[in-house]
């Protein structure tokens, strides 16, 4: 099954390599990995999805914690979370098909971000399934090019480990890999 981790890491050179290398070395297959800034300049945030079972997920979490630069790991699988992927899809658009395409864009609440004589470029943000849906609908017209960012995820509700306490307490907040925190599957 697909497991979603949110990983807070120190914003230092080489940290991405360490995380990626961990998955390679332990022979876990990364499905997607995104990394970006957070509200704290010294912290970066990764969203990683990986195909693994529950036992493997636990080991991945423990392995991530073993990296010195990893501050906090959250397993958001089966959690109330907002999960978003962003895609840009360039689709062939003959003159007579345009109105159909625009209807589709409307139905999926996507946007047209570029118009060219023979094509349209559509931007869509949403859960992966929604993007997959649009993609299927567009295929008959001819998808010329597509790019997806991979998902970013955030827990719903107030509890937000990185937002609350300052950096120093962040580490203390981290669930011990051995305690039975219901949030870490």
């Amino acid at each position, binding site marked *: 099954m697909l497991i979603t981790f949110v990983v807070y*890491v*120190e914003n230092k050179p*080489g940290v991405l*390599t*360490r995380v990626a*290398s961990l998955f390679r*070395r332990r022979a876990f297959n990364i499905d997607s990995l995104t990394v970006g800034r957070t509200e704290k300049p010294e912290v970066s945030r990764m969203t990683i999805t990986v195909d693994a079972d529950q*036992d493997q997920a*636990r*080991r991945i979490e*423990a*392995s991530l*914690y*073993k*990296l*010195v*630069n*990893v*501050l*906090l790991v959250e397993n958001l699988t089966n959690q109330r979370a907002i999960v978003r992927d962003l895609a840009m899809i360039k689709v062939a658009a003959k003159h007579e098909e345009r109105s159909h395409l625009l209807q589709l864009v409307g139905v999926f609440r996507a946007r047209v971000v570029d118009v060219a004589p023979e094509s349209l470029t559509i931007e869509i943000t949403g859960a992966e399934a929604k993007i997959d849906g649009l993609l299927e609908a567009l295929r008959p017209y001819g998808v010329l090019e597509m790019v997806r960012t991979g998902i970013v995820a955030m827990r719903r509700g107030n509890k937000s480990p990185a937002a609350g306490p300052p*950096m*120093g307490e*962040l*580490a203390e907040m*981290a669930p*011990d*890999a*051995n*305690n*039975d925190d219901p949030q870490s599957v």
Partner: protein
Amino acid sequence: MRWTPKGWTDFGTEYRKAPAVLLVEMLFLRVFLPKEAFVDPSLPDRAVSFCPCAAVVVASPGSPETALGGIRFSLGNASRKYEKEVKRMLKTGAEILWECLGREGVEHVFGYPGGAILPVYDALKHSKIHHVLVRHEQGATHMADGYARASGRVGVAIATSGPGATNMVTGIATAMLDSSSIVCITGQVGSKLIGSDAFQEADITGVTLPITKHNYLVTHANELARTLREAFYVARTGRTGPVLVDITKDAQQSSCEFDWEAAKPQLLGYRPDLSPTPQEYAQALKLVQDAKRPVILAGHGILLSGAMQEVRELVERTGIPVTLTLLGLGAFPASHPLNLGMMGMHGEAWVNHAIQEADLLLALGMRFDDRVTGNLKTYAPQAKKVQVDIDPTEINKNVKVDVALIGDLREILRELLLRIEPIDCSKWRGYIDRLKGDSAVRDIQNLPDSGHLYAAHVINDLWRETRGGNVVVVTDVGQHQMWEAQYFKHEEPRSLITSGGLGTMGFALPAAIGVKVARPEAEVWVVVGGGGFQMTMAELATLVQEGLKIHIAIINNGYLGMVRQWQEFFYERNYQSTPLLSPDFAKLAEAYGIRSTAVTQRSQVVPAVRSAREHDGPVLIDFRVEQEDSVYPMVAAGAALHEMIRRPNPIVESAEDE
């Protein structure tokens, strides 16, 4: 162009004083210092005197700060006294390195110089640390490793960039797999050259990323103190392991202020100190108290956490029999009545049977290596498993356990000992004893002297002769390693140093040098095969140069014996590339000025050992042993633990032990 004095940054911005204050200061200096002081003869090009100095103030077109800096700079040069004062606060990266090593308690380092690390070597003159010049950087890492394993302290190895650094890779991986705490320091090309394929540039942090616990690239002198403190802290805490610090040449050369206190490690994400919950303790206790056929699996973690006494107390209180991993040998006395011996691929047959029939395995600081478990599908099927380990990633990695207690073994055992009670497993122990009786007669030790020299005899005699002493045996990898594990009875912790996880041939001799440096009062024996010895025998010169008394026992069977054994068992005796030509080791030793003898008869073993011990200096003994002997019992790779290949019958002749 603005005039920016060389070394501008060195003076920092703390001297932001008002010009008036400065002028007063300058006049003061002018009055009270001899005139010569204002011209520094060692720096003719930068020599400035009071007058131009004052002129700078007046004429400086830049900001007041620029002017002040300029004056400070001029004054610094002009007044030797002042310069000295500034210098006291500033250190080069190279000086900081030695200062930090000293403060971390390092007394010895093992290394090999080269261009990119030369500033560090140059600065060694100011340090009290003893540098052991090795013959190959792999040797330096094994020495640091041996040093760490023998002493429980952090071993330090140093090498230059490029080939020096890559030569360390095998030693670092060896330390990684056996959780040995070493810090490797490598020189790197100048920071501006990184990424340009400069001469002797190798991305050693990239190369060693998967084989270090953590590593660092340092490009500025002012990062050095903090990084080194972190490196030592990471290496010796939690699950110990190797850390590499790669330092660019410019970081070694440039200067900055050194402040040890301010460089305290700040590792937000590093969690070396986990501990179990009360519920987990309770679950573990229940499983242990309910057991009828329990076995303790004692591993390397006991030595690493220093839990020997606690383990002993646990065993004696509960009466649970103990078996050890290869790396655990010495953690619990071999002669203790509850010690069953080693488990695993070449472990004792009765031990493996006992594990397979146990109803509880209590794993203490051992990681269920595949050489320990045999086929996982059939491993200890009836047993509940409790694993105590400091590393959460070891839990359920190979063997699924019922309860895991994660944290430092010593602390956890202390907690358990508060509540644990004796359990009755005397019937179970009696059963294991009967298993033992059957196996013991197959033991080669009991073979009468038939003129053949068996490796087992050599090891057994060596053990008898050195019994009770402060002896450390350092073995290489192969058949001799297994015979040592079987026939040398280790009573003391850290008395066997061997490469278990990586199985690195060539480990023994350099590691032994590290052991002897760490523990000069110990009697150090190298037990090594002809193959492994030839991999790192260049370190004989290191041994002699350092004047170390180390005894070397080559178990010379004319083969890459362990591989030959596999060929015999699994490849129809196709001895492809395993017969091994060796030099005359005795002559070789002689060339280094090392005393040596060759032994071909069992009757010569004891006299050779005795004379070596009496000799005041290193001795090499070439034991020419039986060529096609094999290590028994053996669990073939992939076989169930109880399916052992046993010593064939013809060799079982008598149960008489002499």
